[in-house]
């Protein structure tokens, strides 16, 4: 178990966005979190790298343990946590810098200044997302000149450059067309060999295609968490069945 939560509750001011979340995410698997909009799935994802800390008025109770460390303890090093637990956002957020500087951003944050080391990291990370071949002569072009799919790949490469263990993906394909989505999904299969992936998606077919484990959330509760095949063929809870059969959502 690489991530384990017990009885996590999260409040925005007085609104309770997450209710009694208990789940265990296994290493080197793709875990999908599905549910209708507003069910708290993105909020749950942002619990794992403490991105909710950036929002005013958020309060969280319960415990979240990653690699045997309680990440909400006062001794947790927030920057180390975020290095270990990387995040890909809904819309590609490539920085308005060159392609090289985008990928080198993380390593520079972590104090690497040696040009040769940086170049190696950039090349390795871009190769890891299958961008290096096409872009190796364009590393000093602006990242904003790339297509959405390439930008999303670049954002993943930027994460790989800081050598995380866990990749959190918040609807990473929602801004992409079906062909680009398919390519990013293939990339996730590759990445799963090295990394643990937690992906939030409102696209059930996507979860069915790529996830090993799936959690179904509704109104801030984790209704059911099981093997993807079990969830999609024989769910235990009738609300899960209602959602996957398209009765609501």
């Amino acid at each position, binding site marked *: 178990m690489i991530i384990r939560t017990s009885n996590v509750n999260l409040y925005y001011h007085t609104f309770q966005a997450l209710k009694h979340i208990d789940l265990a995410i296994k290493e080197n698997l793709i875990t999908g979190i599905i549910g209708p909009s507003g069910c708290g799935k993105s909020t749950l994802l942002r619990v794992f*790298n403490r*991105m909710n800390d*950036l929002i005013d008025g958020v309060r969280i109770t319960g415990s979240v343990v990653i690699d045997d460390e309680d990440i909400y303890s006062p001794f947790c090093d927030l*920057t*180390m*946590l*975020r*290095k270990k637990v*990387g*995040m890909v*956002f809904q*819309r590609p*957020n490539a*920085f*308005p*810098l060159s392609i090289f500087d985008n990928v080198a*951003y*993380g390593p*520079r*944050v*972590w104090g690497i200044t040696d040009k040769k080391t940086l170049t190696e990291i950039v090349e390795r990370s871009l190769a890891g997302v299958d961008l290096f071949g096409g872009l190796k002569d364009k590393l000093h072009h602006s990242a904003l000149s790339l297509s959405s799919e390439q930008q999303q790949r670049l*954002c993943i490469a*930027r*994460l790989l450059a*800081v050598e995380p263990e866990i990749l959190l993906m918040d609807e990473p394909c929602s801004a992409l067309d079906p062909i680009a989505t398919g390519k990013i999904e293939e990339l996730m299969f590759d990445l799963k060999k090295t990394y643990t992936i937690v992906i939030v998606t409102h696209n059930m077919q996507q979860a069915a295609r790529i996830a090993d484990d799936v959690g179904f959330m509704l109104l801030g509760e984790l209704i059911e968490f099981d093997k993807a095949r079990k969830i999609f063929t024989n769910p235990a809870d009738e609300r899960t069945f209602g959602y996957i059969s398209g009765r609501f959502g």
Partner: protein
Amino acid sequence: MKDKIAENILLLIAFSAILSLLLITFFIFQQGIPLIFKTGLHNFFSISWSPTKGGFGILSMIIGSLMVTAGALVVGIPFGLACAVFLAEFSSPTIQKTLKPIIELLAGIPSVVYGFIGIVILVPFIRETFGGPGFSVLAASIILGIMILPTIVSISYDSLLAVPNTYREGSYALGATKWQTVRMLLLHAARSGIVAGIILGMGRAIGETMAVIMIAGNALKIPGSLLDSVRTLTSTIALELGYAAGDHRAALFACGSILFIIIIILNIVAIRVTGRK
């Protein structure tokens, strides 16, 4: 029908504003440029300014203007940027709402008041601490640096606020601290706005007259140090126009033309920099 009339009246008013700009431009150049050719470029850009005896070299004043402007930037950029970064990234909304209008209020203080404060406080302080007459490049730079703060702060602040939050999140998600995010990402992302703010501040500094006359000393020579007195293009025009006649008067318009050209260039650069993205 009524709309049409209103439209035409507005058009006329808008056009008259542009027309007045064109007229001013035409008048200044028409009065000043012939003298430059009469004197010859070589003599015009020399250091001998003795307008009653036919010496129209404005080099020392150009250098004076550039020195106090550069000095103003040395003072204004670090303070202005630090202030904008603090307001935009490190302060609570309450502090932002209080401090931003106060800084913008600096722009509303008449320049003669800045000059007055300079004479009463800054000039004696410089004289007693560093020596020299006190009326100096240093004094003018410090006062001008304060005067351009509101321009630099508010434009830089606005362009920092315009940086999408997704960039900040992306940076924090890689483990960057707030300061690293500002230094490595936000200042780059907001660069065009910041540069535009600096250039517009530069335009203000080079065009400022009253405060500079009061504290720069106005001695007609190229300053050898920051503590020497200095005369700018604008001071020369303001100080001499009252009694100038003939070629002398034309020479002052020529100074105005040069200033005009410098400021137009600065504004074009500012517009270019903000437009490019």
